[in-house]
């Protein structure tokens, strides 16, 4: 598979640039058309829209899992052919390997990569510890709850120190309490490492809690964008703040108009 490493970008420079991106599966009408979007380095953006509006397709195009039909996808100034180095991806389901322990699952990206990987084990254990799974590193996925599996998947996406993290509704199958706890962990990890994140979600509160900027999508197009000007770090209690709810409402109304 052709690969091009992406170089670290200075803060504020564009980490992800989509220019005129469109996609149509062979023999089908287009799913996406005319997408222009930029995510600055270190920013956390969310793609919000109803099911089937093309969010996941847009994320896969950004990841290099799909080639764009039209336009270009640039990661830190380069247009890689296929998945690039330095990009982590969290899928809708944890997609853990059933026959590997939590620790082995987290180490998977490093063990598949040729080249230096010193200190990988320590980093993986530190990530699991930070996500509250320190004592469960030796367990197999079937011995973990859904929330714990989702945490392992996040640790796996972060173990190779990605500069860009793409997340495809990673918490959609979890209960509300677990989901909120994971959102808080994710926000802290991304802020700590200065990771540029693009999150696909249909959960308005999730988008407002995590993102600096929310892009609204409907029928394969960007229909609007809203800046979430709440300060970081956002405490869990912010969810009950009138300002938080006001922003959720703005997004809800924008979604209804789209």
């Amino acid at each position: 598979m052709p690969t091009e490493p992406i170089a670290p970008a200075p803060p504020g420079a564009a980490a992800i640039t989509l220019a005129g991106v469109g996609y149509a599966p062979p023999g089908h009408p287009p799913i996406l058309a005319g997408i222009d979007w930029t995510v600055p380095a270190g920013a956390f953006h969310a793609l919000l829209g109803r099911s089937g509006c093309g969010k996941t397709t847009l994320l896969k195009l950004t990841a290099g899992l799909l080639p764009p039909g039209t336009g270009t996808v640039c990661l830190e100034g380069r247009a890689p052919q296929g998945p690039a180095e330095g990009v982590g991806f969290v899928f809708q389901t944890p997609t853990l390997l059933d026959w590997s322990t939590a620790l082995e699952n987290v180490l998977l990206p490093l063990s598949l990569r040729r080249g230096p990987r010193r200190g990988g084990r320590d980093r993986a254990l530190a990530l699991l510890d930070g996500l509250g799974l320190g004592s469960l590193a030796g367990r197999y996925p079937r011995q973990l709850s859904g929330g714990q599996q989702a945490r392992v998947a996040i640790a796996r996406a972060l173990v190779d120190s990605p500069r860009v993290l793409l997340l495809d509704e990673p918490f959609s199958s979890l209960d509300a309490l677990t989901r909120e706890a994971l959102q808080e962990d994710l926000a802290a990890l991304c802020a700590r490492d200065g990771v540029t994140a693009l999150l696909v979600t249909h959960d308005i509160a999730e988008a407002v809690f995590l993102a600096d900027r929310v892009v609204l999508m409907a029928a394969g197009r960007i229909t609007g964008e809203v800046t979430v000007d709440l300060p970081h770090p956002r405490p869990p209690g912010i969810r009950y703040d009138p300002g938080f709810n006001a922003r959720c409402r703005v997004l809800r109304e924008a979604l209804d108009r789209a």
Partner: protein
Amino acid sequence: MIHRLTHLLLLVALLGGWELACRLVPLPELVLPRPGRVAAVLAEELAGGRLLRHMAVTAGEMVMGLAAGAAFALPVGALLAESPALRRLAHPYLVASQVVPKLALAPLFLLWFGFGMRSIIVITALVCFFPLLENTVTGLGRVDASRLELFRMLRANRWQTLLRLRLPTGLPVILAGFRVAVVLALVGAVVGEFIMGREGLGAAVMAAQGMMDTALMFALLLAIAALGSAAYQGALLAERLILSERFDS
């Protein structure tokens, strides 16, 4: 415990019924010998060491045939699982090779590999080949799309994807194919020996028929059943050991 007792009772009832039928209906021993007589012959053959030698020969052919069949079926299966185009191309030939009875190939093998063990191993390998191939292709193709996407995202090459994802995912199916192939290997070896064996259980059955020694034939059939059961249980045990813990669901 009760389960085992029921098994034992059924065995005793079957043997008792057989013994009783032979005493009530005076059938010549050539047609149906009494179980007692079969047991006596079995003990005699075991004590003489002849039976164990035949069993060892047949078991050896099974193992070598299975190994040869697997040596071809696993790589070919992996190749076909990796390439749908190749699979479509090869499929009619593979099916054609399976509908030809292996026995019908025996004269050809006699010509190519000579009379004896080599031809028998080739027949055994051919009999094992198809279930192993089918299960390898099915097993390696079982992996779901999201895990394949994960490996693409992690920029794994084809070889890594095969060894680290497809093989462990398909292992239970591939091992189930081995379980089937082990039993078929015995069929292949014994039938091969019928036609071109000097030694082994199949050759011994043919010799016993030539001598019109029906009790010996029964004793040999029991030995074949015992060998087959042992091989099956062995395969089952190996499967459990390999799949233990990591694959336990």
